[in-house]
């Protein structure tokens, strides 16, 4: 022991610790890496200042370079002064922000949409935060949320009815995304269980359904919902256009969700089933208490992945004439007052989508860390 004090503990070489060490290890470990690093830095150096300049520093927000309030495209600096060095003209987004968010929802009723958004957050809380007080009661609300949201948004029960052709923008995107995912998730679990069922009729039906839906593109299903579904309904019975689209989106998502969850189910060792059965649990008890919690935990990354995919796929509804966020953007471009400002519109729409999908993926990362989904089954 005493001997040791004569020696100074030597620090590790500078080149292997701290920022320098990290850079050396990760960015410049060999000449190919160094080359790629430099290339990327060069591109970022070119791109980021240019983009910041375009989108912020030389951009118009409410007023143009002369200080005038922008009321149409001709006031935009880059239109009014094409020779000058002007950036984006965000006035189109600012002036039409309401439309981008709510579509044509009557402004005196828009508190209903805002309330729905707020309740959506409340409904998500017990799913997002495990240790929230009163979680059991909140979960009940979460389950009831789709019905509450439907009444709030559409009307009835004393609320003025707002037909869905007045809905638009982010509202339609979120309705399709949230309802699509919320209904598809339980449906997907049932389909996954059904496909693995011992009962041949059920398993065949589920397999057929999943394979059929997965075998056709979403756009085909959307056309099916739009064009063919009315033919199957009795004369005079008209399903609302948004509902028909929602049916198509939900079925599509359910089929993919089923396969994701089936993947999770496959990973559960046989012993888990046998153990559950040996303590006398019924089929549903076994799945609810033992199998599904584990299977879903393993599938979280894939579930979030397909959900993000669906959320982005909702933009396809433009093809059948629903004005979602992207559709409202295109509508704005079709107005002679704002035409030609497509860069601004598409960048804005992309940004909104990015905010939602990026939050979803960050949340799934957090969940994975918390639940340690990367566990090595059987090693402990």
């Amino acid at each position: 022991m005493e001997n040791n004090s004569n020696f100074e503990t030597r620090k590790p070489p500078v080149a292997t610790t701290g920022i320098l060490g990290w850079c050396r290890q990760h960015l410049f470990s060999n000449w190919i890496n160094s080359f790629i690093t430099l290339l990327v830095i060069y591109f970022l150096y070119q791109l980021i200042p240019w983009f910041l300049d375009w989108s912020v520093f030389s951009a118009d927000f409410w007023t143009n370079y002369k200080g005038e309030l922008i009321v149409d495209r001709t006031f935009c600096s880059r239109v009014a002064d094409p020779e000058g060095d002007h950036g984006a003209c965000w006035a189109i987004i600012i002036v039409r922000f309401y439309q981008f968010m709510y579509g044509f929802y009557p402004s005196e009723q828009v508190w209903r949409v805002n309330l729905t958004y707020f309740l959506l957050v409340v409904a998500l809380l017990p799913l997002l935060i495990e240790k929230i007080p009163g979680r059991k009661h909140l979960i009940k609300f979460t389950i009831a949320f789709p019905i509450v949201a439907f009444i709030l948004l559409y009307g009835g029960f004393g609320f003025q009815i707002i037909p869905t052709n007045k809905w638009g923008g982010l509202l339609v995107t979120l309705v399709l995304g949230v309802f699509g995912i919320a209904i598809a998730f339980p449906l997907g679990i049932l389909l996954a269980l059904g496909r693995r069922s011992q009962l041949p009729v059920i398993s065949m039906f589920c397999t057929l359904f999943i394979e059929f839906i997965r075998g056709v593109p979403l756009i085909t299903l959307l056309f099916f919902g739009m064009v063919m579904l009315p033919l199957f309904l009795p004369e005079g019975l008209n399903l609302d256009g948004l509902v028909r689209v929602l049916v198509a989106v939900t079925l599509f998502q359910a089929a993919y969700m089923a396969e994701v969850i089936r993947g999770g189910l496959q990973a559960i060792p046989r012993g888990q089933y046998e153990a559950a059965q040996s303590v006398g649990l019924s089929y549903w008890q076994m799945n609810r208490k033992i199998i599904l919690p584990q299977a879903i935990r393993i599938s979280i990354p894939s579930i979030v992945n397909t959900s993000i995919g669906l959320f982005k796929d909702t933009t396809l509804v433009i093809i059948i004439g629903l004005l979602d966020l992207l559709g409202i953007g295109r509508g704005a471009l079709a107005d002679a007052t704002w035409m030609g400002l497509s860069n601004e519109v598409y960048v804005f729409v992309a940004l909104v989508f990015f905010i939602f999908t990026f939050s979803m993926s960050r949340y799934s990362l957090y969940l994975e860390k918390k639940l340690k989904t990367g566990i090595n089954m059987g090693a402990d």
Partner: protein
Amino acid sequence: MKKLLSIFAVLAFAFSANAGTLDDVKNRGFLKCGVTTGLIGFAAPDDAGNWAGFDVDVCRAVAAAIFGDSSKVEFTTTTGKSRFPTLASGEIDMLARNTTWTLSRDVNLGFEFVGVNYYDGQGFMIPSALGVDDATGLDGATVCIQTGTTTELNLADFFRANGIGYEALPIETNDEARENLFAGRCDVYTTDASGLSATRAQADDPDKWVVLPNIISKEPLGPLVRHGDHQWGDVVRWSLNTMIIAEELGVSSSNVDDSKGSNVPEVLRLLGVEGGYGEMLELSNDFAYNIIKQVGNYSESFDRNIGPDTPLGIGRNLNALWTDGGILYAPPFR
């Protein structure tokens, strides 16, 4: 699943009585009109979320004729693919969506075109620097063309008939065509002439682009309704005709009140001062007055939405009255 079904059940509309469309519309209290998801000058939402445009005005005219209030109309957005099923299923009462009147659509799809509100035709737009003043001089040009449209077929026909070659650059949307053309990736963009004007209006310097005089197809665009309900077809037809006749007679939204004291018999018939023409359509006798007062006559609508003073800057040309060298012609109001 049960929850799902109950939601559908609530959303599903009740069985509607099998009455005529006009009665349905009157009972409902507003008109349901199908328009595009957005086409410059023809239909687009303004900043306040109100639809405006040349096609939208036809919807508003019908609403004014029925209710005396041009705002009693709800718009359903349709695309090229969804427009016909939407009309056929009864989701909308009429479609005013720059739709070309063709035999198969009129007959096979079971629709009735009630008239033409815009005579369009396929044309070509090129950079003026190309120095070509006739489409036959476009041999070997790269053409931006929307795939899966009749314009694609017309293009092939035109070049084959003139014995010249071209290279197609397939594109999907108007926006894409514009970007490709402005970036010089194609020399020519071909679509309906109204669409070319819209594209040209969006250029940084519109003078650098020319729309060639060649028109290689007939595209009569007009409102349509479902087959079989002739009374309803008549209402839409005569709402459109009213706008054209009003222009012929020089009656506009600004002088319509004074015109009630006119000494021209047809003006008096049109405005419902004489004769019971509105009643024949099961409308009020001043239906035409309401249309002109609230929406305006054909030229007012044209100038407001697509005319020379708008960014589109489309001239009347074929759409001028028959008395002014165009082919716009409405049957007499008597």
